[in-house]
């Protein structure tokens, strides 16, 4: 077949017509790199502010010191020294095991109680908040209007040995008197953690619970389940993801938390993993490498709840 000879102008017109027809049929056409390129700012951000610094931390953890005991990061893995990492790990199974154990207990207790407190609050707002939902949410966020430091320092006055809490307890017969709240009292730290982190849990829980359709609950009741049974068979399983997300949101910062202890306790009997990091600063020869090693250890610890969360969300998605 002989192709009709077209002038260049006609050729261009024909190409435009073809493109127009294609757009009509398949929607707009974009080059292959177009959509992924939207991730460029995020990727760059991650690279510059996370991946590269993380490598510097690793290089420092496995690095060495100069004659003046200044840290030297080592960027070539074949020169890495495990000296400081092994010191940190040895301490973790040695004296510091108390600190790790303590931290785990604090975090588990605090997050379980956080779930209990925030679930009831979020449940109440979604089911019974009615028109005042916005108001309740504003109330929930209101503590954030006061700086975290101020809120914690305010506790100091309440918990002091001659503070208001002890004074009030003093009026109540049979109540414990002269409680040493701030010196080695585990309860204070757990309460401090809950107080500090509970709002972070309520908000995601509320977001999830709000999306549960009331028709599902009505269906449960129509099929003869009691309110309690509906809650346990319908509402709770549907909010499992929310609880997990909330736990991840509160436990991750708790692993690095050192100021709750510093502001409310300051006795070594209640120090947490975050305090180990704080104390490792200026701990003599190779202290910077030990700080970096501890950072990595804490990161790995934090990956555990994160990994479980990702695993269970993945499973959920597949089941859908």
């Amino acid at each position, binding site marked *: 077949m002989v192709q009709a000879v077209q002038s260049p102008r006609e050729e261009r017109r024909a190409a435009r017509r073809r493109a127009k027809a294609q757009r009509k049929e398949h929607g707009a056409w974009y080059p292959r790199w177009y959509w992924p390129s939207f991730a460029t700012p995020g990727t760059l951000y991650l690279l510059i502010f996370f991946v590269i610094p993380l490598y510097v931390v690793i290089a420092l953890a496995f690095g060495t010191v100069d004659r003046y005991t200044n840290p030297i990061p080592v960027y070539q893995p074949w020169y890495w020294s495990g000296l400081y990492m092994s010191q940190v790990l040895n*301490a973790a199974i040695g004296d510091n095991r108390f600190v790790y154990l303590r931290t785990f207990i604090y975090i588990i207790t605090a997050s379980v109680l956080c779930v209990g407190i925030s679930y009831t609050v979020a449940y109440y707002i979604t089911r019974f908040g009615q028109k005042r939902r916005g108001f309740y949410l504003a109330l929930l966020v209101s503590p954030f209007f006061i700086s975290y430091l101020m809120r914690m320092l305010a506790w100091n006055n309440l918990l002091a040995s001659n503070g208001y809490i002890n004074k009030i307890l003093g009026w109540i017969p049979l109540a414990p008197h002269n409680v040493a709240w701030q010196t080695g009292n585990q309860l204070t730290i757990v309460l401090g953690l809950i107080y500090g982190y509970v709002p972070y849990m309520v908000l995601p829980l509320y977001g999830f619970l709000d999306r549960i359709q009331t028709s599902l609950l009505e269906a449960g009741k129509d099929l003869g389940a009691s309110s309690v049974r509906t809650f346990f068979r319908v509402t709770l399983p549907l909010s499992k993801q929310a609880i997990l997300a909330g736990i991840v949101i509160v436990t991750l910062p708790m692993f690095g938390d050192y100021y709750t202890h510093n502001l409310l306790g300051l*006795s*070594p009997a209640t120090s947490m993993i975050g305090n180990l990091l704080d104390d490792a*600063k200026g701990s003599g020869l190779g202290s910077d490498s030990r700080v970096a090693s501890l950072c990595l250890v804490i990161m790995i610890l934090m990956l555990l709840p994160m990994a479980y969360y990702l695993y269970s969300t993945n499973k959920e998605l597949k089941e859908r």
Partner: protein
Amino acid sequence: MAHPREGWKSNGGLSRRQFLARAAVGAAAIPSMSAILAACTKPGATSTGTDTSAVGTGGYVVPGVPYPLARQDKPVTWAIPNDNQPIASGLQPETGATLQVYNWADYLFKAVAVSRFEQAFNCKVSITTFDTMDEALSKMLNQQIQADVFFPTIDTLGKLIGQKLLQPVNPSYVPNLAKTVWPLFQNPFYDQEARYTVPYVVYSTGILYRRTLSGLSDSDVRAMTNTWDLLWDPTYKGQVGIYSEYRDALAAALLRKGVTDLNTEDPAQIATAGDDLVALSKATKARDATNVAYQLFPHGALTVTQSWSGDAVGAWSYYPQYTMSNWSQGGYWFPQDRVGNVNSDCIAIPKIAKNPVLAHAFLNFMLDETNSADNFSWVGYQPPLNALDLSTLTTTEGYYSAQYKYGVPYVFPWMTDAIVTENDLTKTGRLEMELPPNVDKLYHDAWSRFLSGVGS
């Protein structure tokens, strides 16, 4: 008159062409240079020469440490290398400059060190604070801080001078050094001939105790067979503070057991001191009182706490109400034979100081009798002044108190233990000095047992 340091500054900044050219060279040079250097040699494996005389002579020479360690009986003379000479004499202080002071928190009376100095020298003074000496050292080394005046502790001088972070002091700008301070500081053991530093304050580390509420009278405390036991006394459970300065805390444990060499290298003594601190934590649930002893104590949160003499003396301004009955609550104890933990702090000029002449003027200014004593009246840390009559400190009202008519003497009459004499530093007192790294590790290990709250 142009300052000699202005020579290298170009007049109108760089031209655009120069800027681009230099930026290009710089951009190309920095990564490749460092990459090549880093890839070729094993990092940290620099020459390990043991010749410390280039940094300083005398002192206690330890293999692997590139500078001598100063000891009370082994003084060190720091070298003044050719590439780190003091500034020339006879220069005028920089005018209209901002003097950058790098110091601990609450360690300078701003009415004196800032306002009065600003007026006298027509400049601005800006104070940046640090929390720990380690933090200060690393920021100085990375040049994150470009200070004109720095307040180091005397046990860091080897590191500072060895790495050329300080410049020698030109004594012609600091005539007050020879005039106003104790003879000891004309030629201190940690810096013979006062080549790099001038003294700032002297202090001891003892115990701050509540005199009235706890039934501890001054005479009781002083008559105890071992007053250090107060810190270990379970009677004061929850009311005990200890400094989380590892050397000071361990020194208290060492002194309690009669070990007076606070730089001991005996592993058994160090380990025992660590165990004793763990026992202290168990018995009293002691709190970390560093930087807060002078605040916690006045508010009643502590009954017995380890304390620097300066914190004990200066604590009065932190009481919620200014009454004599409040102030008389705090007593200070230091071993009666004066064998205990004493020290002195100094002032130095970083090598990269932008206003070195003004910095010298600041050193001289702080050594002035009036300024120094006025600063003492607020800071609570005693300057080693000849003019300060130690016998009248308890009856003379300081400048700060007099301004507001509080009627508070430099030192309360019941706190005479907090007054440091020249004898304390030269004869009876024991100074914590820098340790060889492997010994320092033993101290840190002992301390970390306490910090982890073992068994408590």
